[in-house]
C-alpha cells in the first residue's frame, strides 16, 4: 500500500479522521493534555495533510 492508495481513499481517510477527532474530544473531556493525546494529535494532523495534500507550510495552525 502506498501514498497513491491513500490518495484514492480520501473518503475513507475522512471517516478515520472523524474517528480520531471524536476520540480526541472525549479524551480532552476526561484528562488534561498529555503525551498520549499529543501522539493522537500528530496522527490526526498527518491524516489532515494527506486529505488536503498539504504537506507544505501553512502559517496559521
Amino acid at each position, binding site marked *: 500500500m502506498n501514498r497513491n492508495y491513500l490518495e484514492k481513499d480520501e473518503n475513507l481517510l475522512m471517516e*478515520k479522521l472523524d474517528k480520531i477527532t471524536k476520540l480526541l474530544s472525549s479524551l480532552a473531556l476526561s484528562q488534561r*493534555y498529555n503525551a498520549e493525546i499529543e*501522539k493522537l494529535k500528530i496522527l490526526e*494532523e498527518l491524516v489532515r495533510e494527506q486529505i488536503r495534500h498539504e*504537506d507544505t507550510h501553512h*502559517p496559521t495552525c
Partner: protein
Amino acid sequence: MKILIIQLARFGDIYMTWPILRAIKRIHPDAELHFLTRSRFASAADGLEVISHFWQLNTPHLLNPLVEDQLEVSVKRVTSFVNELRSQKFDWVINLTFSPTSSYLTHFIANKRAKTSGYSRDEEGHLFISDPASGYFYSQVGINRHNRLHLTDIFSAVVGIDYHPEDWRAPVVENLNMNLPKQYLTLHIGASEKGKRLNGFMWASIIREFLKKSKDRHIVLVGSPDEYPVSEEIVSQVPGEYIVNLVGQTKLRDLFMILSCSELLVGCDSAPIHIAALTDTPVYNLSFGNVNFWETGPKSSMSFIDRIPTIDSLHTAQIGQHIYEILQGNSPPRLITRHDGIESYVAPQAPSDAFIWNLIKALYFNEAFPLCEDYTFYEAAVKIQETTRVVLKSIADLHASAPDSLHKILEASDAIFKKIGTITPKAQPLIGWLESQKIMIRPGPRSQVLQDTLEIYETLNKVINLYIPEDEVQGQGGENHG
C-alpha cells in the same frame, strides 16, 4: 551538542534548508546535526555533508494501518517513531516547517531542557511560538498576505544565524560522464504542480524562437520520468542536434553537476531553481499564478523572474527572446531581478502594495511608518483605536474584579480586529502583528501574562495614533471612548 532540524515540506524547501544547516554546522562545528524530512522527499538531502543522522517520516507506513481500520497499530507506529526521536535527548530542536503536524512533533520530541525554535506547542497543546521570526511567519506569510522576505532568510532569522557565502555551495559530485556539450543551457520542463507546467508544444516554441537568434547553443532537457512524453514532444519539434534529452535519466543530485556547468537554467517554480542557488547558476524563472516569488523565487546571484498570470497568457516568442538577451549579458526590462537587501528582488509595485510592505517593515524592522492618505485605512484606524481603548480600559478595570468578563471582551475584540483586517487589506499587517504578538506571550503567572498583554495593546495604540490626526487623538480618549 545534539541538534535536530525538522523540514517536512517538499523538495524545494529541503534545498532551501541546506544553507542554514551549513550555517549551524559552521557556528557549532562539534554539534551532531540530525535532519528529519518526509521519506517521499528524502532524496533532496542526498549530498548534504553536514548531517550526522538522517531521519525520515514515512507517512504511508504510519497511516496504512488506519486505512485498514487498525487505529491502534497506527498509534503504535507513531509512538515508536516519536519515542525514538525523543530518546535522542536533543539539546535544540529547530522546526523549519510551519505546520500543525511539525508543531506537535517538535513539542513531543523536545524534552523539557531542550531549546526549541519554530512552531511548537505549549503544555496545554496550544500553538507556541518562541521566536519573532516564526511569529512573523504566522502573521505575515501565506496566501493573501504581503510578505516579501525569502523563505531562506526567514529560516536564518528563526535559527538566529546569518549566512556566509560558503553556506551556499553545491556538494562535491562525481563526474557523470553524460557527454554534455561544452556550452549549454538547461531547461527543466517540469514543475511541482500541474498549473505551473508548460506543455511540449510551448517549450518547443520557446526553443525554436531562441534558436532563431542563437544557433550555436545546445539545450539540455531535465525532468522526472513522468515528464518524458513532454520531452519527446519537444524533441520531435526541434532540430535534434541542439537538444540533449536527459529527462527521466537523472537523479536530483545529478542536477548539481549539470547545473554547475550550465550557462543558464530556465524553469518553472520547482526544486531545480533552488539547486541552482547552491551552484550559483543564473536562473530565468517562469513564475505562474499565485506563487509568491518573494518567498520562494530563485536565489542565484543572477536571477530573473517572469511573472505570468496564467499558462494561457504565455508568449513563447518573448520568452525565447528573453533567454537570448540574458545569455548576451542583458537584463530584459520587464523581468524581476535579484537584489541583496531585506527583499531578495526588485519588482515594479502598485502604490497600495508599497504601503502595506512599508507598514510591515515599520512594524518588524524598525523602519519609519509610511504615510497613508487612503480614507478607508483612516476609517479602519479609527475602529482599531476605539477597540484598543476598550481593551485597555477593560484590562485596567476588570482584571482583578471580573476576569471572566475581561476574557470575553478580549475574545470579542479579537473578532472585531479580524473583521477590520478582512474589510481593509491595508490594515491586515497590523492585525496580523497583534495576533502574532499575543501568541508569543509565554505561559506564566497570570499577572505577567496580563502585563505582557497590556504592553501589546499599548504599542498598538501608539502605532494607530500615528494614523489619526493629533487633534482627534487628543479630543478622544478618557471616559467617552474608554
